[in-house]
């Protein structure tokens, strides 16, 4: 692996060396490393590009890293990764994609991740997207995430895209069964002429199921963002989504929430707030000796932390 790929890997997976536990590293469309453990198996798909990650029931405190790096300009790929998490397992999955595009052709990665989380299993899923390189070619990422939570299962997803992705359409859908709960935290910052679209659809099918979608974003320069969320309550459930955006310069942000209750016991809430940095926040930090620009950076960094 070369220095560019190594640096991408550090950005998306905080990996400085070979990770502990199971991992699969994909670089420019090829497998660049793999490790399996007694409880976590990784199998290459035969019908299409991608892997199956099988986690045995009762696996506790293990982790799986599946970073992807692209440094070859003009590469376009779609990768299908399926995660099967056994009953009562408790694991951390770290995915991430870094694109370095130094050429003129656009590079594109579409990761299609499906999670089948069995009864009472717990998953923490972390996903980071990062782009670099000074070529004129666009860096495009379109992650699709499909989540199936069986009875009593729990999945917490953290998704971060802070820098360098020109265009992204992130589609996440989930089915949440009885007593299961889903938490999604999204952080996005766009600048230049970037475009980011988020599209969540969550169906809560069982009683005592819950979902919490929390999106924080900052749109700078002439970038555009669209946040769509659909929460459907089919049972006695609790759904909450919140979209909190800071808008700067000539950027544009739209939030389109949709709530559907098909059961009298469904309790659904959406909150959305879009606005510029409050003048009083800037002023407060300026009275501490920061310049307006430094104050702005502190406010944005804190907001996206």
């Amino acid at each position, binding site marked *: 692996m070369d220095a560019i790929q190594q640096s991408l890997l550090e950005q998306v997976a905080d990996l400085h060396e070979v990770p502990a536990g199971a991992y699969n590293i994909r670089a420019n469309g090829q497998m660049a490393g793999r490790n399996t453990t007694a409880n976590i198996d990784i199998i290459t798909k035969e019908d299409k590009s991608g892997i199956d990650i099988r986690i045995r029931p009762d696996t506790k405190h293990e982790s799986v890293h599946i970073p992807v790096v692209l440094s070859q300009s003009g590469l376009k790929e779609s990768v299908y990764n399926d995660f099967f998490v056994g009953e009562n397992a408790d694991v951390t999955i770290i995915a991430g994609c870094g694109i370095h595009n130094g050429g003129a052709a656009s590079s594109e990665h579409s990761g299609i991740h499906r999670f089948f989380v069995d009864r009472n299993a717990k998953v923490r899923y972390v996903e980071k997207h990062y782009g670099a390189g000074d070529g004129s070619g666009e860096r495009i990422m379109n992650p699709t995430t499909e989540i199936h939570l069986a009875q009593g299962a729990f999945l917490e997803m953290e998704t971060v895209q802070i820098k360098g992705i020109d265009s992204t359409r992130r589609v996440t859908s989930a089915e949440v069964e009885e007593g299961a709960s889903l938490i999604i935290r999204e952080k996005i910052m766009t600048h230049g002429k970037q475009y980011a679209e988020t599209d969540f659809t969550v169906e809560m099918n069982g009683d005592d199921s819950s979902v919490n979608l929390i999106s924080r974003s900052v749109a700078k320069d002439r970038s555009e963002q669209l946040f769509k969320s659909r929460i459907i309550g089919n049972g006695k459930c609790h759904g909450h989504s919140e979209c909190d955006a800071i808008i700067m310069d000539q950027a544009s942000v739209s939030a389109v929430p949709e709530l559907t209750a098909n059961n009298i016991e469904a309790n659904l809430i959406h909150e959305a707030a879009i606005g510029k940095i409050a003048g*009083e926040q800037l002023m407060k930090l*300026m*009275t*501490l000796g920061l310049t307006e620009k430094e104050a702005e950076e*502190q*406010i944005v960094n*804190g*907001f996206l932390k």
Partner: protein
Amino acid sequence: MLELKGICFSAEDENREIEILNDINLTIEDRFVAVTGPNGSGKSTLAKIIAGILIPTAGQILFDGVDITNLSITERANMGISFAFQQPVRFKGITVKELLSMAAGKDATITEICEMLSEVGLCARDYVNREVNASLSGGELKRIEIAMIMARKTKVSIFDEPEAGIDLWSFQNLIRVFEKMHEETKGSILIISHQERILNIADRIILLSDGQIKKVGSKEEVMPELLGCGQPCRTLTDKL
């Protein structure tokens, strides 16, 4: 030393000019100076003009002989002016430790943060990593605001109604904070307040009324005037 010369400030309201401050002339070099006066008399406006948040429509501000009238908030802050807001600001995602570090102008250690917070009656253990967001009460924010000013150790510190909302923490502690600040900075502390116990410790009291300085002097000299300020109309006096 801070000098205000002929400071005027007016604001526009529905195309009508409203005069908020009119020809304010002041020299502040004492230890504790209190500014008092009825609501709407221009006290907060005066503080904001000193900090650079508002720009006066006329007049001049000198700080240690340097004209700062056209300097930015940041420049004034770096020269040694601090300002504790009447209503402290919340920041999503910024922690108490980060905010106090910004105030101190360095990455403060846990021990230093503990020192700062204990001065305002807060235990660092409970607050250091808390976000300065809506989860903090008004009183907690107010104390953190005061701790920030203490951390800055500047020549001039302005407090806009510091007593509001800190009912459970005694006044005596607040006064002790001001005394300690003065010991450390040897500077001037300007306090906007209605509280008699704060006025009691002031070396000098400035009474503002209708945007003008009505009286400057000791507590004994100013208090009788304060009671006679801003005569209400009959409808109100009949009810009092």
